[in-house]
């Protein structure tokens, strides 16, 4: 059936013909040579891939990777379980249970209330950074680290053991803060700002 009268949908269709090849075309050598030129050109080009994990790509300073719950300079947890990150989260990935700080725990928690349980479902999280933006205590930050792959879904629900930063290995987040925030933090005459 001749389809040449039917208008193509994409406008890019070509009518195929079976015309006789000329002698030069039948040699195939020019075509092979043309193909080799393209191959050799790509050999000299910069590679699109890298040899991960031996080499790693450079991340932006404000790359939004897995979260960290910061401690203050005295090593106390900053999070007070106010729930603003959870209510800001568009993916509803964050849950928490609050508890009251008891006498003698002042060196562990900064405020009189703290998060007894704090969980982020990394499969739900879309790494938008709204939790970071909502946090009034400068507690939650996204880092340049990536969430490790795994075989089981329940291992992607990160609890406090995965999220709270280790006391001996603080994570630098100063580059993620705007100049206005950093300037405000220097004002020591406000009590809530110590």
């Amino acid at each position: 059936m001749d389809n040449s009268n039917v208008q193509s949908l994409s406008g890019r269709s070509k009518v195929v013909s079976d015309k006789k090849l000329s002698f030069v075309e039948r040699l195939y050598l020019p075509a092979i040579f043309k193909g080799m030129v393209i191959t050799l050109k790509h050999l000299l080009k910069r590679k699109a891939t890298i040899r991960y994990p031996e080499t790693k790509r450079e991340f932006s300073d404000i790359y939004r990777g897995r979260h960290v719950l910061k401690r203050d300079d005295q090593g106390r947890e900053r999070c007070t379980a106010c729930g603003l990150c959870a209510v800001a989260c568009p993916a509803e990935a964050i849950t928490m249970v609050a508890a009251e700080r008891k006498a003698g725990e002042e060196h562990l928690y900064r405020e009189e209330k703290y998060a007894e349980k704090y969980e982020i479902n990394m499969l739900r999280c879309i790494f938008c950074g709204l939790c970071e933006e909502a946090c009034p205590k400068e507690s939650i930050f996204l880092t340049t680290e990536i969430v490790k792959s795994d075989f089981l879904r329940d291992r992607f629900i990160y609890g406090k053991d995965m999220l709270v930063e280790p006391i001996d290995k603080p994570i630098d987040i100063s580059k993620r803060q705007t100049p206005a925030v950093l300037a405000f933090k220097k004002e020591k005459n406000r009590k809530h700002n110590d």
Partner: protein
Amino acid sequence: MFKVTIDNITVEVEPGTTILQAARQIGGEVVPPAMCYYSKLKGSGGKCRTCLVKVAQGSAADPRPMPKLVASCSTPVQDGMVVQNITSPEVIEARKAIVEFLLINHPLDCPVCDQAGECDLQDLSFKHGMEETRYVEEKREFDIVDIGDKIKLHMNRCILCYRCVYTADQIAGKRVHGVMYRGDTAEISTLINESINSNFSGNVIDVCPVGALTDKTFRFKSRVWFLNPMNAHRNCPSCSGKVTAWMFGNEIYRVTARKDTYGEVEEFICDECRFEKKNKSDWTIEGPRHIERNSVISANHYEKSKKPSIIKPLEEKTEAPE
């Protein structure tokens, strides 16, 4: 009947009505905010100055304006009075200053406070206040006190509205707590640490506009915007039994009285309903309570939609009678 004009809207009210009450009869944007006035408590009002309005014309007989802004909750209307609330830049400016005054000694602990999300002072400062604080001096500080075994008093957060004192006096019957000392050092106190033990004392939690008086049985349990407020009732021998049950799934986290659009309770409830009955089987759940869209509590809160009157007869037609 007296004719009053508030923000160019004229309304006829009974003689003896206050300006605030007249504004509430109009409703909507023209109602001045109130932190201390409570229509169900006699003698309340006149302390916080949030409801200041401008009287542009005193009355029809004497059309001179009043020299200063007046507290609308305690100023009775006169015939032919012209009042400006949101139409007067002077009032808006004054309200901004009042919010700053109320926040002078108020701590910035909303992330910790159980009242956050339903706090009148939070709403007020969000709507009328400044973004930044200019106050750098020491704020006054008190220890956290238990009033009885069910109520916690955070004196730091108190704005001295006296609502709880009037409630203890008029609703709970026997007054055992009040305000001690004066001025900057004034504080709410149960006299010589005597606990409140009336069956209606829990209502001081509901009338408190800030988080100064909070429910100990709900302390740090959850944030109010994670809970679902449901209308519920039960047969209670001592009160009407009509409450709002704040639920999370099938659990009742706390019980409060039902509050109207001005944040005032509809009916005071007894302590047994408030503190003891936390099982779903204790209550008949009527359905979700109406929450304004601008409230944070309305996040993930779904109510049955009211269908417009046009749709109803159409649906009745299409449903074939069997």
